[in-house]
């Protein structure tokens, strides 16, 4: 299981501002190791963010998202104390889900 995500969700006016830092190698499958063998691709393919049972952002990623992916976005309809849940699934079927409570402005 991968390391937990670091998530911050805070009110900014009437919107919730979310910043996520995930812990993942995001290996492209194009790099070679010291012996010249290709390092197999290992990367997050799908990300889903939900709030109160509703998807507020979903994403599909290729191998060119940087190692330890970062994402920043805003959505309406949240309030302090609500939970934001973020999940990802990678190309090997590994997955991770973390949640955070929305903080005040």
């Amino acid at each position, binding site marked *: 299981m991968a390391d937990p995500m670091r998530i911050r969700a805070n009110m900014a006016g009437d919107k919730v501002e979310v910043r996520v830092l995930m812990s993942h190698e995001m290996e492209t499958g194009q790099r070679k190791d010291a012996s010249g063998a290709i390092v197999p691709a290992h990367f997050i393919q799908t990300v889903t963010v939900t709030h109160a049972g509703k*998807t507020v952002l979903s994403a*599909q990623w290729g191998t060119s998202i*940087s*190692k330890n992916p970062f*994402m920043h976005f805003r959505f309406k309809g949240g309030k302090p104390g609500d939970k934001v849940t973020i999940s990802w*699934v990678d190309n090997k079927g590994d997955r991770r889900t973390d949640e955070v409570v929305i903080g005040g402005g």
Partner: protein
Amino acid sequence: MHRSRREFLQSGSGAGVLALAAAAGLVRPGEAFAQQWNKAAFDTKSVADTLKALGGSGSTESAQIQITAPDIAENGAVVPITIESGLARTQTIAILIEKNPNTLSADFEIPAGTDPFITTRVKMAETSNIYAVVQADGKYFHAVKEIKVTLGGCGG
């Protein structure tokens, strides 16, 4: 003749299973996007092919789409990119990097209520144009920005 008939029957039954799954509520429309990784789109190697794989037949350049990124990236492995769309009913925002081995980097689905704004970090193999492709009200629009890379991000 027999062969094509057989294939037709097989593909027909496959679609039937999917329809059944959808009817039974196993595949909810909102989840289908996140769960089915669009391999065809991520395998494309040109901007035109990517657009086609995403379902667009053409795209119009739009000044309503803002790409915020450095002009020169010293480290191609970590290039911060922000895309903001001023287009009404923005549905998806995709990031395309023209000269990377695979053009499509990311495709974000923006539901109603979420700002048409996204920041992430991408890898760039070399100096290239970045395309922000936005689907708004069913049509495709884009903006372009060139980013110079002094050190490539894909190693090798």
